[in-house]
């Protein structure tokens, strides 16, 4: 094991995959000399050159369209979209084209495009640079969605995404880029659709996504001191979603809490709760959904603090269900 940052883990995954397969290349805004807005691709231009680390114009729709076109021709592009909010700039390619290429052509084309993006909630970037809305793509068949919460997961999932045959939306979290964690030595992949139990427990199941995984682990520490044990499950990929692991946990704990940085309505939690309710209703004693309110992200730091869920929100929700 080595200890590296979440950003470094992603950079390592990109570099290793580009060394392994000449068909893998990067395109996006500022990904070259600048190394990306979050410096994730820093240094890759020096090793791989401008043909494989391609700065693009500020044209998100053309970036994803071109990535799709080049992918159906046998390449494995990794496109960077600077902020998740900007995915709406390329929605036509991202929703109407890319996930449907294989389907609409009766399987004649495959489009193994990986789209790396990040959400910045918690960094006071306002309503148009903070949004996290992965459930939108859970409702778009044909594209897989990964939301890694640790350096090890980020590296293993990104490698799996690049090697796979399907389009993948890979949603990173800016607040995590500087976080360090242990990463296995050598080459490894983490399969999609396999949740990770980040901490086992018996009293409540917390299904946490991205940044909220860390918050849930902090909550688990706080609750442990009060004799309450929670099980923290990180689905790691939302499409496919490992419902079985969640169900097994809920059957054990009888209490389900979901935690995410999305707005609440139709968020990831809504889907998780629906699936568990359909299949394990008799086991359930209580459910809580933790998310941002259905309000755009505010700028002013105190307002942002009031807006974001965190460790304390989880602690409160668990105690409510336990009482």
């Amino acid at each position, binding site marked *: 094991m080595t200890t590296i940052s979440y950003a470094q883990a992603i950079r390592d995954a990109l570099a290793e995959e580009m060394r392994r397969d000449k068909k893998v*290349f990067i395109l996006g805004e500022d990904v070259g000399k600048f190394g990306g807005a979050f410096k994730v691709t820093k240094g890759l231009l020096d090793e791989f050159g401008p*043909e494989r680390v391609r700065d693009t114009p500020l044209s998100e729709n*053309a970036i994803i*369209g071109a990535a799709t*076109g080049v992918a159906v021709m046998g390449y494995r592009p990794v496109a960077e979209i600077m902020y998740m909010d900007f995915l709406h700039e390329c929605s036509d390619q991202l929703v109407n084209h890319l996930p449907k290429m294989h389907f609409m052509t009766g399987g004649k084309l495959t489009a193994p495009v990986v789209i790396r993006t990040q959400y910045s909630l918690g960094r006071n970037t306002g309503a148009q640079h903070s949004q996290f809305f992965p459930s939108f793509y859970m409702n778009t068949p*044909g594209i897989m969605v990964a939301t890694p919460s640790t350096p090890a997961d980020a590296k293993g999932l990104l490698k799996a995404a690049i090697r796979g*045959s399907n389009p993948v939306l890979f949603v990173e979290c800016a607040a995590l880029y500087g976080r360090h964690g242990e990463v296995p030595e050598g080459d490894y992949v983490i399969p999609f659709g396999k949740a990770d139990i980040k901490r086992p427990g018996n009293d409540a199941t917390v299904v946490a996504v991205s940044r909220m995984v860390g918050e849930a682990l902090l909550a688990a520490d706080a609750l442990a001191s009060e004799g309450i044990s929670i099980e923290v499950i990180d689905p790691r990929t939302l499409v496919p979603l490992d419902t079985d692991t969640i169900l097994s946990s809920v059957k054990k704990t009888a209490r389900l809490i979901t935690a995410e940085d999305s707005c609440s309505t139709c968020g990831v939690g809504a889907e998780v709760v629906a699936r568990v309710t359909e299949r394990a209703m008799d086991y359930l004693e209580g459910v809580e959904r933790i998310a941002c309110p259905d309000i755009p992200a505010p700028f002013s730091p105190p307002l942002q603090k009031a807006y974001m869920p965190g460790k304390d929100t989880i602690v409160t929700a668990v105690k409510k269900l336990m009482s």
Partner: protein
Amino acid sequence: MLEEEVVELFKQGLIPGLAHPYIGQEAVAAGVCAALGEGDLVVSNHRGHGHSVAKGVPERAILSELMGKDAGMCLGLGGSMHSTDLQAGIIFSTAIVGGGIPLAVGVALALQMDKKTNCVVCFFGDGATNTGAFHEALNLAAVWKLPVVFVCENNHYAVSVPVSKSTSASIAQRGQAYGIPGLFANGMNVLDVYAVALEAISRAKKGEGPTLVECETYRYKGHGVYDSGLDYRTQQEVDDWMKRDPIQAFERKLTEEKLATVEELDAIRSKVKSRLAEAVAFAKDRPYPPNDLLAKFVWA
């Protein structure tokens, strides 16, 4: 001739959903595709049956797809607006106006990175030139000097709105904004289209970058099979354009210049007619796809 069958089959309820006839625009697909060589590719659009025919996709596969039958080129999963036949060089057709243009840029990028001397032609209508995708894609293709030819089939109407009310300056002129040639072709004259397309295609293959080609043409029918086409234009206007019919004009030229006889042309026509009759019968006879096809190609 295929489109006349399509209109008839739609009336009979055998083609469900949407279909957008190409009648009147034949010179564009025929002229451009004649200028393509082996290994060259096409990205098509919602009005794409003509492109498929010009690239040699078997009529059986086209008509089966339109009827939603299992022998369709996309197994009945695509429909009228989605054609893919890799053998014929039709990569993809999109039903989103303008959506194919960035995609074609990606196809061209692959050709360039593979160091091939082939090119890709992207067909779209006048309406598409007012989408953001058009402008983003032309700029990107120009910046990267990609081997792509953007062929705008200006048939004068985006559904019902005339170009004069929707589009500033001429479409060909828009090439200048991206530092690429913007050429104009008479889209009712197959030889003119061929000559202009050849120039653009040669340029792309020589590594000199993209070209925008505007072909001025006209669709005789409505926007789709459900549209008379006469709510927003007069019968007189349609009749005037039909007098310039590209097929008739080309046949006249062939006979006048003694390159073909009327009998030879009639023989070709009846050959196509019987091939189409066979294709229609074939498509009618084919079964619909089984329900297990539904989930088969969501994931690769």
